């Protein structure tokens, strides 16, 4: 289900956006509009939807309009035209008190430079959202203390923000945003002001928090690696509009235009490409009921030295080597029972290539690729992984 739907959104900065809006609809460029009307087109032609529980990344360089777009979602910036729908409620023209209520209960925000209140303790910073809703002191502090523990800052409740390191301050920022238990988190370059190492651990922590909290997150960043790491889907923005929306892999393997291509050029593909992108189809396989005869014939036919065995539901049962199958046939054995190797090297379908390489290096057998339900969906051999990586690389270069 779509939690947030943004449709035909436009933001024009200036005193008289009507004329600029008209020119925009007639197809004039941002520069032409600026020259003729003195109005700046912030974002235009924005269409996307975010699913419940999804981490949706808005990614682009500074000036691409990503922060403007983020602020339109909770109407910190008023869009010029278009609609924003949250939980099937059109909030584009909602009254101020409705918006206030949405900000209090449904949508929270985490800021690039933390934006903690320097005159309040960590505890009262985190409790701020509840405080302005009129929640009694004891109750809101209790709730805040819980959240502070969740983000790993227990013991710092009564410190002032300036006594904390950058990473810790942003934990407070995150705790403050989580305290009123919103469905939606808007994160504006939340980790960009942190040191690289701290940034990485905060990303990991956000992902593990997200596992248990399952919020709908819109995350703005200019850092492609960050986008690829934490985004379920990524919207790449350039010059005020979205140029491509897709998963990390879709954007890397099928860049929509030159801009995206140049953007993703330097990405370390081994971190982004997953087993799915480099595996071969699981063909041939044999079923448990088939027996050594069928297996041997299949292997001869395809010129391979081992074959995967699956159950009727195509769940991975094991692997059989050609020499063992031959032996079994000679001894007129009808079942795989003694010759099947159940301890097969396997990886999940979403394992990045960088984690597949060591598995491949340690085994002489092909590696099985399985889904969550243990069904065999692909096969990895050294050659296919290398070929897969080169193939994707060629697409891009």
């Amino acid at each position: 289900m779509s939690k947030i739907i943004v449709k035909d959104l436009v933001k024009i900065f200036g005193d008289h956006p009507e004329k600029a809006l008209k020119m925009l609809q007639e197809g004039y460029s941002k520069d032409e509009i600026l020259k003729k009307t003195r109005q700046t087109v912030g974002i235009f032609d924005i269409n996307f939807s975010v699913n419940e529980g999804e981490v949706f990344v808005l990614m682009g360089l500074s000036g691409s309009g990503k922060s403007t777009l983020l602020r339109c979602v909770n109407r910190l910036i008023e869009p010029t035209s278009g609609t924003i729908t949250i939980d099937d409620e059109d909030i584009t023209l909602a009254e101020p008190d409705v918006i206030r209520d949405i900000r209090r209960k449904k949508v929270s925000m985490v800021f690039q430079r933390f934006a903690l209140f320097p005159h309040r303790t960590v505890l009262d910073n985190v409790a701020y959202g509840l405080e302005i809703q009129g929640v009694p002191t004891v109750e809101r502090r209790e709730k805040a203390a819980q959240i502070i523990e969740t983000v790993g800052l227990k013991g710092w409740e009564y410190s002032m923000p300036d006594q904390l390191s950058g990473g810790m301050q942003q934990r407070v920022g995150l705790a403050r945003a989580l305290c009123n238990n919103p469905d939606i988190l808007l994160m504006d370059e939340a980790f960009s002001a942190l040191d690289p190492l701290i940034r990485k651990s905060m990303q990991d922590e956000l992902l593990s928090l997200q596992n248990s909290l399952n919020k709908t997150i819109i995350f703005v960043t200019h850092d492609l690696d960050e986008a690829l790491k934490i985004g379920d889907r990524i919207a790449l923005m350039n010059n005020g509009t979205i140029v491509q929306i897709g998963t990390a892999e879709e954007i890397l393997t099928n860049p929509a235009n030159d801009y995206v291509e140049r953007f993703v050029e330097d990405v370390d593909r081994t971190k982004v490409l997953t087993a799915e992108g480099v595996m071969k189809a699981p063909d041939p396989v044999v079923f448990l009921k088939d027996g050594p005869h069928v297996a041997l014939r299949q292997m001869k036919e395809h010129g391979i030295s081992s074959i995967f065995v699956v159950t009727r539901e195509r769940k991975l049962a094991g692997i059989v080597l050609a020499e063992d199958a031959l032996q079994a046939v000679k001894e007129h054995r009808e079942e795989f029972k003694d010759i099947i190797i159940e301890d097969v090297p396997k990886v999940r379908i979403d394992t990045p290539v960088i984690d597949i390489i060591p598995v491949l290096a340690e085994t002489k057998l092909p590696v099985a690729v399985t889904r969550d339900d243990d069904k065999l969906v692909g096969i990895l051999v050294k050659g296919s992984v290398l070929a897969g990586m080169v193939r994707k690389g060629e697409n891009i270069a």
Partner: protein
Amino acid sequence: MPKLPIGLWVERIVDWAQVNLDALFDIITLIIRVLVTSIETVFLSVHPLIIIALVFILFWFIANRKIAVGTAIGLYLIYNMQLWKPSIETLALVLAAAALALLLGIPLGILTARSNLIHKIIMPLLDFMQTMPAFVYLIPAVLFFGLGQVPGLFATVVFAMPPTIRLTGLGIRQVPVELVEATDAFGSTEWQKLIKVQVPLALPTIMAGVNQCIMLSLSMVVIAAMIGAGGLGNEVLAGISRLDIAKGFEGGLAIVIMAIILDRVTQSFSEKHKVKA
């Protein structure tokens, strides 16, 4: 080109106000009288030495030891010079004027920070109020309120209010935009934003405005004495008119002592809030 009758226009306005706003001025006079005399009565009904001791103890706790000791010595010196009563009169005038100036100035300052239009209207007015020689205010003040403390206080408020408005406005405007944005993002009302974030963060600057306001009030003491506001200003004026160096100097010294005490105490508040923020 003939001379524009600007002075005449102002005179007309003052005349009109004097006739038509009489009732209003009476009410203001009454309020100010009550305010000033009650402050005076409180301080004059207790023996000076007891007050000095109480002030010493109070400052010891709310400010710091150095200020407490300095204040006690200064106040004793005033008592010793037999200037206690005029000093209390001056103090009452200054405190009442500062209180009114703050009461009007801080909300006005907040308004200037919130609305660019109000800012644009008020700023030139403030320039006018601050640069117009303070003596000029004495004329309409006397016409409106007669002679005595009330017109003195009126002129003092007009003169001392501008820095309060300016510094309050400045303090609020200086609150970082991202903090204001954060309060909005969590769904604060305008009032919550002001009370919970903007004013607390602007407090050091606002306190600097309070300090300025009190200092400027004190600087009006001698001028206000020219229209019968009394107090230490009277001592100085008497010194001038009789060429009595001793009297003039003692009166002046007492003003300096009061100025230093009030300055240090208000500054120490300002410092305290700075550490907190």
